[in-house]
């Protein structure tokens, strides 16, 4: 398990090893320069000020002052370089990880997307990736730098006085324990606050969405009470953090001054045979002050590392599942499709042994149209998802022009199958882009497809015509209009097999007529499969397949099925009666 995490971290860091080494070496220099600063002041105090002179053989206060300034400048220049390098590395990592996950989600098959909620993927690409980048931006380099500076300070202090240093170090365990305890307590509060905030924001978002409903049913008072309760919860959850946030720096100063107290008390009393120069007191005070900062940062960074490891594992748990990835290129290429489609004893289950399709067999000859009829869950949609290999079947064969569809490459196969979904997806791009998607199609052909799909009246009514940009998810268009656009897509891409999952949403009679017109044109030209919800759509198809519970229960033309007076006839009659 540990090993796996390490391999994953290495995988991310691999292309940045050089930067990491360079920045680490620079950090050592920066630390050394930083440590030498209080030492210079000590020299001035002990060797000049205490003695009342301003010049020695080689040195003078002015020269030391200038050396101090040069150290400041060089140190900061190196620091700027190192930090910029690190930041760029962090952003590169972020960029690479986002690309990796996005690519995975695009190449992963539909089963993957069924199992993984879209929100989860979104969080992986946005938040989790940020955690990793802070590992690279803040931790990898400062971690080492801090450790070096902690060790450096300890060594220099011991060099001045071993006994005094040991006494001063008594406070270090307290610093560490307090830091860890407070960080833990604060994190608990923050986590708690986060979940309350999520609740509050969900509530607000929902109320905004349901504004009209709230008015219609007069539930303003109920909603206001709920809001006040949630804001109070948030207030109560967040407030305690102020105490701990206030406590932390105060406690650190307390420890710092405790250490200074110990040093001074011991040295003035000559306990343990310790006596001290004034300059050394200065240097001890300075070093103790600069010792706490890296210690606390290391503790904070441990937290960041833990979070980053969790995120890395979450991300790689997805990336490492190669079984979901689709290979679009593998297999024969496919051109000149005649359009004969055969299902031979097909068995299919989304999850093991939970058979959705049981031994399905049927044949559609080139140019024929079949309709799939049955209750929700009878397996109609599943059949259409098998033809374009959104899912692969477990038993049996699906043949296109006599060849198993598994032998074709997926890209070609899908290009020859056109599907109109119940609720077609409209990208927030122009109508033109929505029709051509990723294929190069001329404006002339797009306009022709729009006309063939009877969408011209609707498109012309838009102020920018085919250049009109749709709102998010095509929210500005009705379900019927979206379907018309989806038909235009089909006409523009001209696939050989046409699959239609008819909309259940209410579509007005006028639009429904336009849709019907498109359906008629397409089914006259192509091999077509319909999932029909309106019986009026299917009475003219060549064959109707009635499914129940994953099995074919009836099969035949409309008139044949009516005559046989089975399931279909019952369904048909009830619809007709309802019309009066």
């Amino acid at each position, binding site marked *: 398990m540990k090993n796996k995490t390490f391999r994953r971290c290495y995988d991310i860091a691999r292309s940045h090893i050089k930067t990491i080494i360079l920045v680490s070496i620079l950090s050592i220099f920066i630390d050394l320069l930083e440590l030498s600063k209080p030492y210079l*002041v000590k020299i001035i105090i002990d060797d*000049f000020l205490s003695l009342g002179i301003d010049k020695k053989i080689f040195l003078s206060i002015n020269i030391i002052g200038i050396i101090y300034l040069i150290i400041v400048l060089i140190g900061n220049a190196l620091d700027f370089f190192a930090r910029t390098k690190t930041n*760029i590395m962090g952003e590169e990592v972020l960029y690479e990880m986002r690309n990796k996950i996005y690519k995975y989600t695009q190449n992963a098959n539909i089963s993957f997307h069924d199992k993984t909620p879209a929100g989860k993927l979104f969080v992986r690409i946005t938040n989790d990736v940020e955690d990793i980048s802070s590992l690279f931006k803040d931790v990898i380099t400062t971690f080492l730098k801090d450790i070096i500076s902690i060790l450096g300070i300890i060594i220099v202090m011991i060099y001045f006085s071993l006994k005094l240093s040991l006494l001063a170090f008594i406070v270090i365990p307290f610093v560490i324990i307090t830091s860890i305890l407070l960080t833990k307590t604060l994190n608990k509060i923050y986590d708690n606050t986060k979940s309350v905030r999520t609740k509050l924001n969900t509530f607000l978002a929902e109320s905004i969405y349901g504004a*009209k409903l709230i008015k219609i049913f007069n539930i303003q008072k109920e909603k206001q009470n709920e809001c006040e309760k949630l804001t109070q919860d948030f207030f109560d959850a967040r407030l305690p953090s102020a105490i701990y946030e206030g406590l932390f720096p105060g406690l650190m100063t307390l420890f710092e001054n405790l250490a200074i107290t110990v040093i001074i008390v011991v040295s003035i009393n000559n306990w343990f045979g310790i006596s001290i120069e004034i300059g050394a007191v200065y240097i001890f005070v300075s070093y103790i002050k600069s010792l706490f900062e890296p210690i606390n940062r290391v503790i904070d960074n441990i937290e960041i590392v833990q979070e980053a490891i969790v995120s890395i594992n979450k991300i790689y748990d997805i990336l490492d599942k190669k079984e979901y990835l689709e290979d679009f290129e593998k297999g024969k290429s496919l051109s000149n499709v005649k359009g004969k489609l055969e299902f031979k004893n097909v068995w299919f289950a989304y999850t093991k042994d939970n058979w959705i399709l049981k031994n399905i067999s049927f044949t559609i000859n080139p140019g024929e149209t079949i309709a799939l009829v049955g209750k929700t869950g009878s397996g109609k949609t599943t059949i259409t998802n098998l033809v374009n290999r959104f899912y692969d079947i477990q038993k049996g064969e699906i043949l296109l022009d006599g060849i198993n569809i598994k032998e074709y490459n997926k890209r070609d196969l899908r290009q020859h199958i056109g599907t109109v979904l119940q609720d077609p997806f409209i990208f927030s791009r122009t109508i033109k882009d929505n029709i051509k998607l990723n294929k190069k199609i001329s404006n002339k052909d797009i306009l022709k497809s729009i006309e063939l799909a009877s969408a011209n009246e609707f498109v012309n009514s838009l102020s920018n015509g085919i250049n009109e940009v749709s709102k998010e998810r095509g929210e500005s268009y009705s379900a019927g209009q979206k379907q018309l656009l989806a038909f235009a897509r089909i006409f523009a891409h001209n696939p050989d097999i046409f699959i239609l999952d008819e909309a259940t949403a209410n579509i007005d*009679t006028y639009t429904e007529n336009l849709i019907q017109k498109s359906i008629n044109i397409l089914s006259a030209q192509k091999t077509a499969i319909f999932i029909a919800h309106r019986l009026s759509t299917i009475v003219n198809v060549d064959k109707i397949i009635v499914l129940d519970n994953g099995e074919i229960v009836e099969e035949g033309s409309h008139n044949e099925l009516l005559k046989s007076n089975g399931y279909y006839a019952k369904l048909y009659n009830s619809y007709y009666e309802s*019309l009066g």
Partner: protein
Amino acid sequence: MKEVIKTVLKKRLIIAVGIFVTVGIYIYLLTLPSKIIGTIIDLLSNIAQNKELITEKIKLLLIITLLCLIVRIIWRYLVAYTTRFFEKTLKDKLFGHFLKIKLANIQNIKNGELMSYFVRDIAEIRGFLYRILAQATRIFFITIIATYTMKSINIKLTIATLFPIIITTIVTIILKKHIEKNFIKSQKYFTNLSEYVQESTDAIRTTKAYSGEENQFKKFVKRNKILKQSNIAVDTYSTLLSISVSVCFGLCYAITIIYGSKLVLNNIITIGEFVAFNGYIDLFHGPISWLPRIIYNFKRAQISYNRLNNVFALEEEHLKITAGHSANQIKGNICIKNLTFNYPGNLDCILDNISIEIKEGETLGIIGTIGSGKTTLMNLLLRLYPIPKGKIFINNQDINNIDLTSLRNSISYITQDNFLFSTTIKDNISLFKENFGDEEIKDSTEKSMISGEIRNMSEGIYTVIGERGIDLSGGQKQRVVISRAFLKKSNIIIFDDTFSALDNKTEKSLLNNIKELVKGKTCIIISNRISDVKDADNIIVLDAGQIVEQGTHQTLLKNGNLYSKFYNQQSSMENDSILN
């Protein structure tokens, strides 16, 4: 907006004063340790003589550190309390206002935009308040107290060291401007990328069906790269900022070393004062980086303040009319006289000279194409939009004279968007009103044909649905929503296109239950399907905002106009095939 600030200030004025006082004390205490350590260093030159004095000073140091800790906690708590209380009050007030804003005023604002008022703008203003209370006050006191203390040691040295600090403050303000600019850009790119990710995961089936994976990925990489570059710019400027602060303080220390030493050698200041001076300079570390942040926070907060002010300025609905008719349940004789309507600020006429009369106990059917004005007419009936006097009457009362609460309480308007809150089924039906028992709720689900499915859920009517619970299908949602009408039993009941996702059998039984429910009540059924409206006492055909036909099913069929055309379209294919 101003009022909210006033009420918070009035209620918590003492706390605000408390904050000011505690900050003053805190800063004063902060200057003391450096001074004490300085004194101790001076006393160390003659340990034997000053031993007792040093011990006393040490005790004082510890006491002051402890006091510092306590004052700091009190101050932080007061700040957090005030800012969070302000946030809560503002959120509650804004929500209360939002619930009352006229629908026409919020309809043009995107949901995401409304949400950002609650989340981003309030946070921005709270953030600014925090900076004022926590940082601006500190800057104020540090400048006064620290400068005063430094000046008391030596005025020339003070001026010499403060000079670079002032210069750096100006530099940081300028640098911060660039950071801010790039940060806003980065945020925009990030939103852009997030939206793209969300769209692509939602669109995955369409993308796959058209083999668009590679293209989608390319477009993603392009966006990702822009984001990366923009982030690097922000990072670089930020690094530059902290480096310049660090150089500035290096310069200050160098000046103290060179110039301060001279003063020591000339016996103008003591070594202890020389050391203490360095400690005072440290106090400026915070303010120098806070000041630019406060300035830019102020700019952002100003924008947010104006945005919120605009929202608060949106006109509210007047739920109660003092002189109005406020019977608990209004009986339903509805009369609409020559109603013409267009949405505020929109020239298109949605309803054109509509006159309708519905007697108590009658059912009206409305049928028409999308955009014919059906839903608008219902919105006006509930006065969701302002409507001129003398147009709509209920029980001979102009609806402008009926108070909104009792008007809406008397009408059950079931809308077509079947919106559900993510809470229990029970709360979704009763809409948080507590005066309904479980049995009544169950009874209403029985009537709306959803009780069977609810019984199969583990928690029954207490099952949580939506974001925090299970997903319902479109048909199930519709039936849950319809249950509201069976529970509320208002005198006027409206079904606006609410049967579209139901199968024929369910729809038929449901229509029967509705007939039972609306006996003696006024009912309006809007639909595209003839089967839903054919039994109504009166049917209106709407087309482009006008009533083109009116009558019973039989008379309308005889007329041979639009209604019979709809009828023929909906049953033509069946007729054809039967004739065959």
